[in-house]
């Protein structure tokens, strides 16, 4: 059985392993034991605190495979993307250069440094053991966070953001970012991997604040850099399709380092929020459960949050049937309400810009 739960101190080694194997490396999940330990403590503090408005809380979750007892994934929520420091993006804009004299109107694309997404809640720092990629475990880890937000809306913004790693090229057996090569490189004289590592230590917004504030004219970037704008890393294509199907849309914003896409959504528009519902638990032996689509089922416990992968097996009166094991993992007895949503998403089409 798979369960998503808040990270605990005993998960540190697993987190370290997941941080080290994330591809590409994530600035918001640095493979430094001290920073990861701090992350866990901060998450625990966030869960204990009384919160009425989103602030600088971080919630760090892990995915545990109970069959093996192994922690095989992690994902986090930043209650407010730019709570301590601003959360910077490049915003795609269009300038109009118009000349009535020549009767021409010419549109010029630019990228402007922006921190408008700072107020949104950020879904970030997801890393999953390669064996589980593109399985239901992947979806569970990614979307269990929405089940958490759905229960504690006062802790989060109404707008959610999720950033996907950008497109990289392999050159001389190294992963390089054509966008960074054409943009950041000019200002920092450090390659993508160096700056990415530095950002893990120093924070990305710190680096953003040293970048020049003028809009960048796209025609002056290399074709490779232009092509990378808003393009996700191929390894994250499936994940991105899933989030689009969930109801996120592409935005004007891209990552300042690698130009990876940033998706945005208002909570209330997401499939999970619209479809999830409270159901009283009915415990039934495994063999007597009817066949049903997979579902995410979560208990309503802040510090002991659990979200498992079960079946959307409802009785005619709307009770959710769980196995004794599932009920145990969720820590619920018969008659307690759980939040459940069917896993399948409507379609996996591309969102609009």
């Amino acid at each position, binding site marked *: 059985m798979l369960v998503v739960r808040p990270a605990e101190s005993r998960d540190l080694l697993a987190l370290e392993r997941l941080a080290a194997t994330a591809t590409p490396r994530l600035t918001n999940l640095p493979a430094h034991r001290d920073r990861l330990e701090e992350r866990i403590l901060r998450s625990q503090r966030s869960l204990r605190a009384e919160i009425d408005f989103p602030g600088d809380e971080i919630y760090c979750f892990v995915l545990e495979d109970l069959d093996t007892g192994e922690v095989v994934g992690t994902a986090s929520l930043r209650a407010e993307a730019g709570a301590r420091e601003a959360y910077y993006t490049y915003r795609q804009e269009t300038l109009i*250069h*118009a*000349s*009535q*004299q*020549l009767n*021409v109107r*010419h549109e*010029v694309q*630019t990228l402007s440094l922006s921190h408008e997404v700072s107020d949104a809640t950020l879904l970030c720092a997801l890393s999953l053991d390669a064996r589980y990629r593109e399985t239901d475990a992947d979806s569970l880890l990614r979307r269990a966070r929405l089940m958490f937000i759905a229960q504690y809306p006062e802790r989060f913004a109404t707008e959610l953001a999720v950033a996907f790693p950008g497109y990289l090229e392999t050159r001389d057996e190294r992963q390089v970012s054509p966008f960074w090569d*054409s943009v950041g490189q*000019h*200002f*920092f*004289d450090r390659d993508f991997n160096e700056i990415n590592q*530095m950002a893990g230590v*120093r924070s990305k917004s*710190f*680096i953003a604040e*040293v970048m*020049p504030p*003028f*809009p*960048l*004219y796209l*025609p*002056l*970037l290399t074709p490779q850099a232009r092509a990378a704008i808003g393009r996700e890393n191929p390894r994250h294509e499936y994940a991105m399709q899933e989030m689009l199907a969930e109801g996120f849309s592409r935005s004007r914003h891209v990552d300042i380092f690698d130009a990876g896409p940033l998706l945005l959504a208002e909570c209330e528009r997401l499939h999970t929020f619209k479809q999830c519902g409270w159901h009283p638990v009915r415990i039934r032996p495994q063999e007597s459960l009817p066949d049903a689509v997979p579902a995410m089922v979560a208990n309503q416990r802040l510090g002991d949050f659990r979200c498992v992968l079960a079946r959307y097996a409802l009785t005619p009166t709307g009770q959710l049937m769980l196995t004794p094991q599932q009920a145990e993992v969720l820590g619920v007895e018969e008659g307690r309400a759980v939040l459940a949503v069917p896993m399948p998403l409507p379609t996996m089409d591309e969102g609009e810009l």
Partner: protein
Amino acid sequence: MRIRPIARHDIEGLKVLARETGVGFTSLPDNHEFLSAKIERTLAAFEGREPSDDRLYFFVLEDDRDGSIAGCCAIEACVGTDAPFYHYRLGSLAHSSVQLDLHRTLDTLTLCSDHTGDAEVCSLFLREGWRKDRNGALLSKVRWLFMAQFRAVFPDKVLAEMRGVFTPEGRSPFWECLGSHFFPMDFNEADRLTGMGQKSFIGELMPKFPIYTPFLSEPARAAIGQVHEHTRPAVAMLKKEGLRWEGYVDIFDGGPTVEAYIDDVRAVRDSQLASVEVIASDAPACERPAVMAATTGMADFRASWISHDVTRDDSGACHVRLHRDEAERLGVTGGDTLRVLAG
């Protein structure tokens, strides 16, 4: 050969020049209305009728054997007052962070109109058959004598715009990397429009935020402030006068604009007034004319090379001897005053 202000009857001669200048010499399009308006403007300026700052002093080089027009040159007294006058300015901006151990200074190009109100020397052209006998130097330097003589009608600074780098195929790497993305037209069309004085579209279409030069292509970067190989002698001549490149470049081809305070220009500083003594035309002369002389009236301004050196008497006053034909060429007689420049 002598220099004089252009006159109405020069229109046909000017058209011949215009046809010979060819592509890239945008201030002399082969267009009757445009050229005759130019002549009217210049007459108004020389006769002091032009009240505004929009004064053009346009000179021709006349072959006194048959009166044909061999070349031309001009001074705009005050650019940018009638139509906007744009440059890119090469500057730099520090990019630094103590914490990141970062300290770089990056070059930027920024659109500006800093030269608004300055004088400009321009429109120099010499026809093929006359490219000898220091005619080119005469056309170039006569403008300094004119400015020295009528210093009060000019501002503090003077500039000259130099043609930028082009490939042998006639393509401008600077334009291709920068301007072409912003102007929905080709280089020649853009250049032609500005030559016609239609410049407001530049401010409307050009990128207005600073351009960091590292974002430009290698050839475009290399072209910033560099001149076309044919223009090198002209730049050298101006630099000898003390004009310098202070970072301003043409917005289309990236060619340099050189500039100086008028009072600092060597020829302006070194020119002096001398009284004329007329001698017989067959008196012996220097082999190569080394002194340039100009008259001191504006409307009937004349200038030419003369064959004798300037002499200075004990009181410090200067004198110059002219052959009779030289005096006639300049329209002066004994006792008149000329402004002269040795070299």
